[in-house]
């Protein structure tokens, strides 16, 4: 019962916000009467949404974008998490690797798009590469911070309970102790990856939600653009909620 109330208390403000956006939008359309190719009335994108949904086109674009983000995100995680554990664990290793991280981190993943196109063309590899760059650093930074925040007494406890090698300590104590921070990093990086894939698809793609938007612009169909944007927003909210739920399950040591 209380969990239902909690869900309602999260969903209702969201619905109110959506209603306000729709009302303001429609007011602007009624008052300023912009050309429908610039800002259509609410009805047009809604119709287009159902149209694209029924034809399966919307789901195709969505699944293509999601597949790109997921594969790159998993790939980045599988490298960033072990690397982050090692950097957080060994000061000497961190001193070697950190300058590279510091140099590459401030470069926006979007700045890699031109090189990605030059190197990989407009196929899947280039997209995955851009999302990889976008998801790698948040995961890495979060993992390193998670390891450094571990109470040293837990490490000592692991040692007197038989974890004599670094490998054993990392697996049995350091990784689980840092897991809450790692999950937070994965959540944040999924968001940055989701933003990056849209940008990459805007520039060079023949499928994906970003392509749907770019294509809508080229053929002067603002309603299509809006459908793509709405889908990005809806999925973003859903995934963030899902990862929040996950991170509550791994919230030890944070209270």
């Amino acid at each position, binding site marked *: 019962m209380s969990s239902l109330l909690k869900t309602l208390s999260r969903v209702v403000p969201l619905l109110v916000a959506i209603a306000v956006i729709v009302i303001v939008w429609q007011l602007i359309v009624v008052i300023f009467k912009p050309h429908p190719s610039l800002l259509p009335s609410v009805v047009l994108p809604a119709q287009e949404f159902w149209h694209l949904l029924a034809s399966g086109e919307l789901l195709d674009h969505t699944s293509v974008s999601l597949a790109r983000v997921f594969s790159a995100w998993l790939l980045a995680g599988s490298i960033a998490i072990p690397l982050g554990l090692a950097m957080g664990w060994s000061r000497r290793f961190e001193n070697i690797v950190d300058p590279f991280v510091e140099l590459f981190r401030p470069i926006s993943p979007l700045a890699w798009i031109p090189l990605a196109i030059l190197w990989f063309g407009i196929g899947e590899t280039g997209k995955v590469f851009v999302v990889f760059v976008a998801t790698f650093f948040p995961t890495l930074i979060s993992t390193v911070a998670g390891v450094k925040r571990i109470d040293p*007494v837990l490490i000592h406890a*692991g*040692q*007197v*309970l*038989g974890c004599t090698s670094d490998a054993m300590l990392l697996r*049995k104590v350091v990784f*689980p102790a840092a897991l809450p921070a790692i999950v937070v990093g994965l959540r944040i990086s999924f968001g940055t990856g989701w933003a990056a894939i849209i940008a990459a698809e805007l520039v060079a793609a023949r499928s994906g939600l970003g392509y749907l938007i770019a294509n809508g612009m080229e053929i002067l169909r603002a309603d299509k653009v809006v459908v793509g944007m709405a889908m990005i927003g809806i999925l973003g909210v859903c995934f963030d909620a899902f990862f929040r739920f996950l991170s509550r399950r*791994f919230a030890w040591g944070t209270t």
Partner: protein
Amino acid sequence: MSATQSKPISIRSITKTYQTQSGEPVEALKPTALEIGAGEFVVVVGPSGCGKSTLLNMLAGFGEPSSGEARVSDVRITGPDIDRGMVFQSYALFPWRDVIGNVEFGLEQKGIPKRGRREIALKYLHMVGLQDFANKEVDELSGGMKQRVAIARAFATEPSIIFMDEPFGALDALTRRFLQRELLHIWQEHKKTIVFVTHSVPEAIYLGDRIVVMTARPGRIKTIINVDLPHPRDATSDTFRDIERAIYAQLDAELAKSFALEGREIAVAAAD
């Protein structure tokens, strides 16, 4: 209960000197020598910063002595070992494991198969009266219960020595009293060698075969007091009180010194 061998500890004039961040050496422990018998319960008391935790950490293998060495059954201590257990003031339970999972941790490292692990872990949870809490999450327990889990975890691997670093320091007086009694029972049954650090004098007298009184920083052994009273000891008895008075007399002198030292440091800092 299987009777594992408890082992003696031989501390041979070990010292510890730290390097501060500005590179100045700080002497934490002056040359210290002590022989601890197998199965003996030794309590170390002293003012804060007297190096008693430093000493305990070196015995556990967390830091090399700057000079000298410590041996267990004539084997030099070079690092942490599952044969030397430890109970920490902040419990140090693993929050991602439930109660029994914590007790099983060391058993996993010893390579005991799953069924055997559960059985042993339950036996030790029973020992501390928490068998009904086996599947609770650690966060659901009170401080006293957490420390009982930590004690069960330390004994479950059947080490020959257990170090206890102010294990009851964060607990309220009544819980503390209860756990002291419980620990004595467990020790009498298992006869491990125990080195117990505290700054509570009554606690030291209640528990220890011998009490090692440390000096103020830099620490060294000021005096060693044998407590020959039979267990359970009555804290209101005359002999208990006499020993208490004697230890406080020793400690008061050290406290005065360490306060004077701190005062001087503050004065120096203010002058800078």
